[in-house]
């Protein structure tokens, strides 16, 4: 082991005296570990089974997305953002397109905005489904994985029919949408909602009162609202700690202000509450999609955007509520066809910082649960 097992950030006191009368043990977990959801290496400092502290080693998936952005035109860079958080590619695309639209001072037409909301919320459901399946699998419940993947398939089918891709969809364009919706799109989305509503109950039946699940998640990886804010943690993790904050409400983008929905929050900030918050979020997404499909306006799907995108000199920071938290883009234009700088503020990267704090004093087995509950995607952490 290198000297990197020293833990100095976050000046927290190391808990009590050693439980066992032995030296502390340093254990390496990952980078190839099935429960780290990608290539994440964690260096654990243990006292027997108890975690004294840990350090994350990241960067194994670093592809230099921000550097690539400086060498591509605004249009060419659009598909790259899908490859960051690849389970929520549509959200990434929405954030990027909206930021460039802000630089260009254009706004997507209402029909495009509605379709964007529908696809993004479907994506939130798909992302939460994938999270639920894998998180439950990590903790030892195999069944939810089959249920969630079965139902997620229906969302991917809608994407495939809409734009030809299932995962890295590249669904949006700067200024609106490239494709008009296919015939029967509304009907299919509505059918999905009817199909999906009872499925959430099914997931909850499997887990919410399941004794093993509750024992493994309650009071595990607890984080207070104050610590969340200090560490910049956003998304469901922040909400599960009791902070009612969602960018869709706080600083509405797209046309979220037209829809009626609630922000689910938790109280304890533990793994169980985060589970409940995400389940409730899926229900809220269903509500939003329902309203958006019903009120889907006719009209153009593309705003007037020049063929060659050349935003005026300036800089814009814009962020959206991705399934994992605040996803921000900071784009600086020097008036040419390529961005001078594209900075991505990834929610997973910042949220992962809290892993150390959340795992201290827990058992080794709980580290797995906490990595799962943070819902990180390493493609986005490392970019």
């Amino acid at each position, binding site marked *: 082991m290198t000297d990197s097992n020293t833990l100095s950030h976050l000046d927290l006191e190391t808990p009590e005296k050693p439980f066992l009368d032995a030296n502390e043990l340093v254990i390496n977990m990952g980078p190839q570990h099935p429960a780290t959801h990608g290539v994440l290496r964690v260096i654990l400092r243990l006292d027997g089974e108890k975690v004294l502290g840990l350090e994350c080693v990241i960067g194994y998936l670093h592809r230099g997305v921000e550097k690539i952005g400086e060498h591509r035109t605004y249009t060419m860079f659009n598909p790259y953002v899908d490859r960051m958080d690849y389970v929520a590619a549509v959200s990434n695309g929405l954030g990027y397109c909206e930021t460039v639209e802000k630089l260009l001072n254009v706004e997507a037409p209402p029909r495009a905005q509605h379709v964007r909301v529908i696809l993004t919320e479907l994506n939130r459901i798909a992302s939460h489904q994938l999270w639920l399946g894998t998180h439950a699998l990590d903790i030892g419940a195999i069944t939810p994985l089959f249920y969630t993947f079965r139902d997620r398939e229906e969302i991917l089918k809608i994407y495939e029919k809409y734009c030809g891709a299932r995962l890295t969809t590249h669904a949006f364009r700067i200024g609106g949408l490239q494709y008009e919706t296919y015939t029967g799109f509304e009907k299919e989305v509505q059918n999905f909602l009817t199909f999906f509503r009872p499925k959430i109950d099914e997931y909850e039946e499997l887990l919410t009162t399941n004794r093993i699940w509750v024992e493994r998640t309650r009071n595990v990886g607890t984080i207070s609202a104050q610590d969340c804010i200090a560490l910049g943690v956003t998304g469901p993790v922040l909400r599960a700690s009791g902070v009612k904050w969602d960018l869709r409400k706080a600083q509405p983008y797209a046309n979220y202000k037209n829809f009626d929905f609630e922000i689910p929050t938790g109280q304890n900030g533990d793994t169980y509450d985060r589970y409940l918050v995400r389940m409730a979020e899926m229900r809220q997404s269903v509500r939003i999609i329902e309203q958006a499909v019903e009120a889907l306006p006719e009209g153009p799907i593309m705003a007037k955007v020049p063929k060659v995108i050349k935003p005026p000199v300036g800089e814009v920071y814009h962020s959206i509520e991705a399934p994992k938290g*605040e996803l921000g883009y900071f784009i600086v234009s020097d008036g040419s066809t390529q961005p001078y700088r594209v900075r991505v503020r990834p929610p997973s990267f910042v949220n992962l910082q809290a892993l150390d704090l959340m795992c201290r004093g827990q058992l080794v087995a709980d580290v797995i649960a906490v990595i799962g509950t943070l819902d990180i995607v390493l493609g986005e952490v490392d970019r």
Partner: protein
Amino acid sequence: MIAKLKGAYGSGIEPLTYAGQNYMVVDRSLIPEILQVLRNEEQFDYCVDITALHYPAREKQFEVIWVLYSFARNERIRVKTQIVDGESLPSSVPIWPAANWLEREVYDMFGIKFDGHPDMKRILLPEGWKGHPLRKDYGILQQDNEWVQINLGIESGQ
């Protein structure tokens, strides 16, 4: 708020707006104080992002940017400062613990050091890598071939 800060610090602060977003260019010497004031007096309790920009042609080559948000005011602000190559900045980890990894990334990508940071080392690239890739003089195909050859045992990563 900006008027108040402007009143207190005078020419060290230049408030600007672009596309409806407020930001201010702050003199390097005022940075520690301004960040502290924003956190403690103006309630900017959430450090959203820290990043940098490289302008090789300028005398002060780097711009460092803090994106801050206040839950109480539901407001965002960006603080910007300009520094020369090799100059360091005070770490804001004592103000916002969230700055820890963000500052490490700025160091990794631009080579800007933050004084007083508890663990100032690379984060995305491996330890021992030479060069800071988001500098404009670092080519898009460029890499630390020596590191690749020693550590990966291959001629080149391309």
